[in-house]
């Protein structure tokens, strides 16, 4: 990636961090959701 002006680099870093945190939250949420769905389905005796 070509380096830009310092304020552009700072802005890019900020956006990348924001995207990464959002992705982490989504993935953790999905893992929890799939776990809960599996628990409920098993307690109901199958799929």
């Amino acid at each position, binding site marked *: *990636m070509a380096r830009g002006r310092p304020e*552009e680099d700072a802005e890019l870093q900020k956006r990348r961090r924001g*995207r990464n945190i959002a992705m982490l939250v989504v993935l953790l949420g999905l893992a929890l959701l799939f776990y809960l769905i599996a628990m409920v389905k098993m307690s109901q005796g199958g799929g």
Partner: protein
Amino acid sequence: MKEAAASLAFSGTTTLDASSARDWLELLKPRVVALVVFTGLVGLMVAPGHLHPVLAFTAVLCIAVAAGAAGALNMWYERDLDARMRRTAARPIPAGRIAPGQALGFGLTLAAGSVVVMALATNAVAAGVLALSIVFYVLVYTVWLKRRTPQNIVIGGAAGAFPPVIGWAAVTGHVGLLPVLMFLVVFLWTPPHFWALSLWAHGDYARAGVPMLPVVAGARATRRQIFLYTLILLPLSVLPWALHLTGPVYGVAAAALGAWFVVAAWRVLRDAQDTAGVSLTRDAPAKALFRYSLLYLFVLFAALAMDRLVG
């Protein structure tokens, strides 16, 4: 900050780097999703039977994600139109913050994921109707109808009417008469809602070459159509009560809300206008009708949910 953000798209930076999490969220049209989620949730609440809260939450989440995915695919396909319209030119794709290919991949992934998870968490009927709603919005409305016919909103409006049916099917595994009637209510509500907006936004649509009714048939004909649709909507919205599918809480609310909808549409019809049908009040009645139409749908579905809770 704004200057730095604006310069990113032109500084050799990849569009992925230029995008923020908010841009990806914007691609999902969150304001449209809110209405869709609400009607889907009510469909789920009024259905006979029981769905485990985790599965109910998953079903509503799938409806939201599918609606967002359809929105992203719509923005991907309409990026040329969006760039020409003032209202949409700042969206992530025309503004250069998200590349078209990225938006397409994002939309397809979410669409497929929402249908698969819906099938695993609830049943095949709910997943099938969910898939149908995405296909309808993207292929029938966005790709086929929107640029070809002023009836685009009439037929395409069906896409936004599916959520109550999906919510109901998630609980019961089939489609009943009440969700079909609620589908028809949203279906008939959509044209007056969007035509009211297009009465004052038609300059944007004309510039983009979208054949919305005011662009093709004129403002006067659009006002007549708005009034006609609200006249049909009123008895249809009361029909679930007349057929004893709901109680009086819903019935009275539907009659009162529908009557006021007709009054608001009548004001649009009688708006002061010149010989060409151009509003002399800056479309104040149309703007009022647009705002009221949103309130109408929220309150009508809230009344349906309340009716089931007290009934």
